[in-house]
């Protein structure tokens, strides 16, 4: 039996990845998950240089935009930080 996953895989795109110096981090969360707002605060605490970028970013949980940061993020979820887009 594989061990229970206790972390959230956080993908840091573009300027978020540059600021953190890495393109993803694993954040441990309680088995019942935490609110997205709390997860973002934890991210900012762990990587203070991300603070201003996080304020301007959109967040994605398992391929869907989070429209309400009270939504929960659970172990095994994927959570992405999307700074403002700049394609084209």
């Amino acid at each position: 039996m594989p061990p229970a996953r206790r972390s959230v895989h956080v993908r840091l795109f573009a300027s978020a990845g540059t600021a953190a110096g890495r393109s993803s981090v694993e954040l441990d969360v309680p088995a019942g998950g935490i609110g997205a707002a709390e997860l973002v605060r934890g991210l900012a605490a762990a990587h203070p240089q991300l603070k201003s970028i996080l304020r301007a970013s959109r967040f994605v949980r398992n391929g869907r935009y989070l429209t309400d940061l009270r939504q929960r993020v659970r172990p095994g979820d994927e959570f992405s930080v999307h700074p403002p887009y700049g394609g084209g």
Partner: protein
Amino acid sequence: MSIRLTRNRLSLEAASRALEGAGLGAVVVFAGRVRPDSRPAGRVVALEYEVDRAMALRRMRALDAAARRTFGARRVVLWHRFGRVEVGETAVIAGAACGHRAKAFDAARYLIEELKATVPIWKSDRVRPARRPRRPPSRRAGRSGG
């Protein structure tokens, strides 16, 4: 195919072929190329595009559907490269075939504006420093290509 995210070169000619079709009165196609812009640090020699692939494809499909619904587009091309794109190369193509020209212009314009504003793609400059001997442009390590 009407939606593409690719590391390969994009061709306006291929897009034109994809927009062919009887009964379509008007085709408008836009191509955006990497410009050799100047920066304080030097001259841009390439752009590096990063993409959240799954999200980007989903959003591009939504734009395709919206162009068909809103402007009556019957064929759509929405192609974007990721990874390194050299100066002069095409980074993005957006095109639509409609019954009439006003709709085709509006649809193509809509596609590129919405792509830039709402599709998770990011670019960063690759610059050759001014007044220095030529050397390979620097690359940041550990970045996801999406």
